[in-house]
């Protein structure tokens, strides 16, 4: 039971991660990357700094 729950959680994380990376690849870079602090929340684009 414990193993099933944990594996399900891991699979959910894997799906979310793929979604996150795909989102990052499609122009919405900064809002997913968050590295620079310059995400344009509305447009999902980077301000260039």
């Amino acid at each position, binding site marked *: 039971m*414990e*193993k099933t*729950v*944990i*594996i399900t*959680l*891991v699979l959910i*994380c*894997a799906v*979310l*991660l793929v979604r*996150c*990376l795909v989102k*990052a*690849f499609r*122009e919405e*870079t*900064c809002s*997913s*990357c*968050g*590295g*620079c*602090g*310059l*995400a*344009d929340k*509305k*447009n999902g*684009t*980077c*301000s*260039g*700094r």
Partner: protein
Amino acid sequence: MAAKGKLTVALAGNPNSGKSTIFNNLTGARQHVGNYPGVTVEKKEGSVVYKDHEIVFVDLPGTYSLSAYSEEEIVARDFVVKDKPDVVVHIVDASNIERNLYLYTQLQELGVPVVLAMNMSDIAEKKGMNIDYRELSRLLGKSVVPTVGSRNRGTQELLDTVIDLHEGKIKIEKIGVDYGEEISAELEKLEKLLRERSGALEGYPLEWLAVKLLENDAWALEFIGGMPGGGEVLWQNEKSRGHLKRHFSDDPEVVIADRRYGFISGACTEAKSCSVEERHDLSDKIDKVVLNKFLGLPIFALVMYAIFKFTFTFSGPVVGWFEQFFEKAGELVSNVIPEGLANSFVVDGVIAGVGGVLGFFPLVLFMFFAIAFFEDSGYMARAAFVMDRIMHKFGLHGKSFLPMMISTNGCAVPGIMATRTLDNKKDRLITMMVTPFMICGAKLPIFALFIGAFFAPEQGANIMFLMYALSVAIALGSALVLKKAVFKGETSHFVMELPPYRVPTIQGLLLKMWERGWLYIKKAGTIILLISVIIWAGFTFPQMEPGEGVSEEAAASAQMEQSFAGRIGKFVEPAVRPLGMDWRGGVALMAGVAAKEVVVSTMGTIYSLGEVDPEEAEPLKEALQNDPSWSPLKAAAFLMFCLIYLPCFVAMSVFYRESGPSMKWTLFLIFWTTVMAWAASFLVYQGGRLLGIGG
């Protein structure tokens, strides 16, 4: 109450005119403001409801003109022409009025309703400039509103003026540049031909297009050449240009620019007076030292060293508290959840992974604060200027240093995007290729972890500075190689603006530090958390039964080696073994491609899984110190690899898009950085061993 109407207002202006600050004041949005040119590359939107109007503000990229010399100019121009905003607010640096108004002369040619916001009017006053805004408004035939963006002064008046202009309560007059009889006659000929083809002009004003043609604007020539009957217009243009060239003994574009500056100069002479000598202000005095041929570079090095010294000196104790906090959290969870998969999931996966990254949060905050101080003061723009001479020796110019600094100050993603300010395609690609070599905020925890684990605490800032200097040297060396071998060609010239120095406000610094810091936390709570869980699962499954008589330590170690991640690690181990790493280092590096902080979180998970007794769990730094398979030399080789190897997934995605999109150049980037990283790391490790520095 329903809004009376929606209006779109574009904010245009020169780089560093305070446009982004005004945008923030008008919309309440939190957009970063940096005190050096090229901050805004894409247009951004923000809206506000004022006096029952929904006003959408669009922050256009900072430009000096509306020619087709750079991406920003095209983005700004196309928006003004094609999207037809209801009002254009032209933000003018009042302390540098002559140069800033050059853009105005082009905006008014586009025939859009313009309001002039004379920003930084306080600085103009301090410089001893006395600007008669009413007179200026009369001379230009436009509304002029003095503002002080940094203190949010004049925002209300600006909004009122925009509304009044939109509602027709203010009339604007079209007072344009008088190009003189000769040029005007030629413009008329071109306009006549263009009028006959107005259906194909896509909304571009005739007068403006005619001026662009005479200026030999590359975009205008291509645009007109591509439309039906465009050949005749281009033929007339050649004839007109030839005539003007003979008449003025100079290129028409030079004469046109002269006329524009003449118009501006005339307006300024009447509306502006100076009580003190402008040229000898404080900024100039500081620049005499800071930009000195011999002192410039040492001062820049000193500034970078000061940033690292400040960061390491003051963040050390706070980082220690954070580490203890996560250690205690792990112990607490171990006491609550019984030993088993769920316990390991939380302690080894989530806490060890995310905690390993979040432990360095104070260090990142201190670093961002120090960098924000130099950015906002205006020094960072000087750094690029200082680097210009050196950059030229490496086939680039100072403008290419800005994206590299942006990468150091935060992330390679905006660094790569900031290369849009470079006009030359080859220069742009080279800069994009070398920008990821810089130490971004995500690489910082890796360096802090290994420096803290293997070098004396008082050496932290020195080693970090050394790594920074190395990253610049590697970037420049790579640029030279790429320029000589792959991207041969001339380097384009540019004029770099030096904004006046300003005293940064504490509020501004804290806001900038927090915004960047908050995203670090956000990233740790999302992508790093997810990857940590996957990495944990990779080391936990498939589970194997420990053999009889095998110690717990040996069983834990065998489990990791037999796991999915362990097998991948073992597969890549031969490639990283000559660099002094074992399979664990290989796995951490591979995982780090998703996000560089993941190198730290993966190490955290690996060492946490290797712990048998939760009561004896030690912070990651100590675990690395106590691991005999590491040594300072191996740590140095590992850091060298981390410094150079391929950028994170997101940075690579942006590189792909910005390079064309080009899969060819993206694959080249992956190959180039991996080979370079391996070779440099090999040299450090094997060279160190040969010299007897360590094993």
